[in-house]
């Protein structure tokens, strides 16, 4: 008998992979422990990592923060009530994954937990003070031409839209550097055309456009960091600087003094994408914008609360009716193109586009790898302010879109998911029918049998039960 293990990763199962947007936690998890160790030397990173942790994990960290010796694992377990043991295990795992804490033996031989030294030290610095300041801004003189928040918002939005416009190939292709294009190509959001070598948008690129602005920025920067390493920029330093920006105050200026050359280059890139504002390249000061501040909010996407979108410069323009009609008050080609991804456009007026959400149009979008969640989120995010006021007919729902439309889009998606995938191991080439029957019955008894065929003497066992069945088989074949 032979076993052939066929483990399929979830990526291969999807016919067209959806764009993966990792949050900070997942990003850090994929990096080496050594990289994490260097990161934890920055108080900003510690603060950001702390905020990304699950609720219970945060509680553990804060209680261990002022304890200088290892704490027995049993004690940590006793802090959480028994009914939530599963959640507790998950939190402990998250802390270990990010090497926020390590196992440490305590006298008496019991296993204990202890926070990583550098993490503990720098989180304390961020919370209580001490250490070196993050930047040399305290010696900065007041700016004669200080900019207000409204100006910064407008600036950030204009810069960022410039990147997006470039992606859809609109006329405004000026003001985007070769570096930015390289990142877009690297991320697979755009690809070189086979004929003339010009950059064209990919499927993943369209999905990227449907994300919320905060997510777009974060995803873009992730790819930037990947390419940064090749350009001898230290990813740790860049990440620390990014989080330093995200913890700054909007409308305040910060000094560039004491920044290394590499970081000044990085700053110029951020300036290009609209994350910071600088009047002149050598101004010696910069203003972080809302785009930079929102990096930390990737995960907490509450309904209709995207800080940049609530600013007066960027108002919602989409109205969705219960009859699946979509009205978009816009003149921008970018927005029309995006809407065209999942609606059937019916009319176009100078300032208004009318479309219908149909089964066909939505299914086409789904086939392209766009998820129902993305469509709904996009419609929600750009809802017209009038939609916020409208009543949903007494039905309490979390979204301001008509519930019928939301449900139908979800149904159209689930229509396509008729398969459920389970990982499994194939057992075949049994020498005798008796062997096969014994093993099959055993597997069935254990409840791990997925499929079997007596004639070809083939059976599939679930991944989880594989070890057990194999052990049984060894015992069985030895005894007979």
């Amino acid at each position, binding site marked *: 008998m032979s076993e052939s293990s066929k483990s399929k990763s979830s990526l291969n199962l999807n016919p067209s992979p959806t764009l993966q947007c990792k949050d900070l936690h997942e990003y850090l998890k994929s990096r080496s422990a050594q990289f994490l160790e260097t990161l934890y030397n920055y*108080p900003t990173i510690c*603060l950001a990592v*702390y*905020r990304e942790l699950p*609720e*219970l994990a*945060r*509680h553990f960290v*804060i*209680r261990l*923060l*002022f304890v200088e010796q290892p704490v027995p694992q049993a004690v940590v377990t*006793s*802090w*959480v*009530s028994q*009914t*939530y043991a599963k*959640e507790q295990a998950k939190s402990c795992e998250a802390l270990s994954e990010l090497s926020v804490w390590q196992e440490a033996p305590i006298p008496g031989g019991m296993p204990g937990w202890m926070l990583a030294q550098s993490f503990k030290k*720098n989180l304390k*610095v*961020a*919370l*209580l*003070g*001490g*250490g*070196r*300041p*993050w*930047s040399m*801004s*305290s010696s*900065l003189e007041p700016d004669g031409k200080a900019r207000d928040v409204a100006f910064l918002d407008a600036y950030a939005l204009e810069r960022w839209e410039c990147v997006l416009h470039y992606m859809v190939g609109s006329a405004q292709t000026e003001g985007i550097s070769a570096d930015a294009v390289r990142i877009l190509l690297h991320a697979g959001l755009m690809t070189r055309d086979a004929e003339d070598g010009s950059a064209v948008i990919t499927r993943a690129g369209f999905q990227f456009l449907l994300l919320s602005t905060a997510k777009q920025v974060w995803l873009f920067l992730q790819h930037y960091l990947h390419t940064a390493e090749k350009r001898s920029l230290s990813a740790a330093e860049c990440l620390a600087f990014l989080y330093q920006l995200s*913890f*700054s*105050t909007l409308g305040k200026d910060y000094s560039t003094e004491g920044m290394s050359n590499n970081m000044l280059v990085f700053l110029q890139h951020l300036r290009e994408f609209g994350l910071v504002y600088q009047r002149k390249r050598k101004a010696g000061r910069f203003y972080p914008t809302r785009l930079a501040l929102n990096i*930390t*909010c990737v995960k*907490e996407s*509450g*309904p*209709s*609360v995207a800080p940049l979108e*609530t600013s007066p410069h960027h108002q919602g323009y989409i109205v969705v009716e219960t009859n699946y009609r979509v009205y978009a008050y816009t003149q921008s080609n970018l927005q029309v193109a995006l809407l065209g991804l999942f609606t059937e456009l019916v009319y176009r007026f100078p300032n208004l586009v009318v479309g219908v959400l149909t089964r066909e149009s939505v299914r086409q979008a789904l086939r392209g790898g766009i998820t129902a969640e993305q469509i709904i989120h996009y419609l929600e995010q750009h809802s017209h302010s009038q939609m*916020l006021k409208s009543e949903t007919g007494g039905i309490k729902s*979390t979204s*301001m879109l008509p519930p019928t439309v939301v449900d139908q889009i979800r149904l159209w998606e689930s229509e396509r998911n008729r398969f459920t995938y389970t990982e499994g191991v194939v057992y075949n080439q049994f020498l005798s029918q008796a062997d096969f029957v014994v093993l099959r019955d055993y597997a069935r008894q254990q409840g791990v049998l997925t499929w079997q065929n007596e004639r070809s003497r083939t059976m599939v066992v679930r991944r989880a039960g594989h070890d057990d069945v194999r052990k049984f088989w060894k015992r069985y074949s030895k005894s007979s």
Partner: protein
Amino acid sequence: MADEETPSDSSLLVIIVDTNPNQRYITEDPKILTNCLDAIISFANSHLMQKSRNQLAVIGCHFHKSEYLYPSPGKPLDVRQIDGQYELFTLVEKTIKMRLVNLIKSQPQDEKPGESLLAGALALALCYIARLRRQSTPGLRISSRILIVTGSTDTAAQYINYMNVFFTAQKQQILIDVCSLDKHLSLLQQGCDITGGLYLKVPSLEGLLQYLLWVFLPEASERTKLVLPGRGRVDYRAACFCHRELLTIGYVCSVCLSVFCKFSPICTTCHTVFKIGGPLPIKPKKKKLKT
């Protein structure tokens, strides 16, 4: 608490700090107030550290008035980073310390310190929460709670005000937590019980920060998952309206439900006139009509 299970997007914490100079732990060693204040500020910053949308207010409660210590009315202080601390945390610390000094300086010198105006400070906190709720963007779920840190002794002088505040908080789904630094406070404990908050009498002032972080930092949705000190028995004795003493048995006005320790012919709250007590007059028996 309507949906205790789902964690909120943003959590608002109002801390009421009792700064009355006649608290026993301050009269014994005035320096200890600084330690306690540092612990409270660190705790406040830890709350802001939990989520980027979390909000904070601190109210100082003195014997002559209560005042916001953070956020300061008007333009915030212009604070620059001086060490590795997060800028916002530095702002919180500086503002609280500066405004507390102002508050203490403003106290009338010739007056003897009286009782802390905790009920007033609580009302101030409720107003602040109501205002922020009104101003918040639609769709944002805010959970609010109030934490009182006090070393004052229990008095029933503000009994009615307390009860009004407690029931308002209950109706608004605002938790009231109490951290007592000195004596057991039965009246405030009732408030915790009514609103679903936690009550803790700190055994030692040295570990104040650890107690605060352990018991009072988790928000309501998280508390159900943790093992926290139990509620214990709550003393639900009411205070009489005439002498502010706690009673087990007393007289209750049948119209407005005011409690009195002694019988009075006119209710002082609603001015209802009662018949004089004493033995009930015996009705004269009707004479049988003789036929």
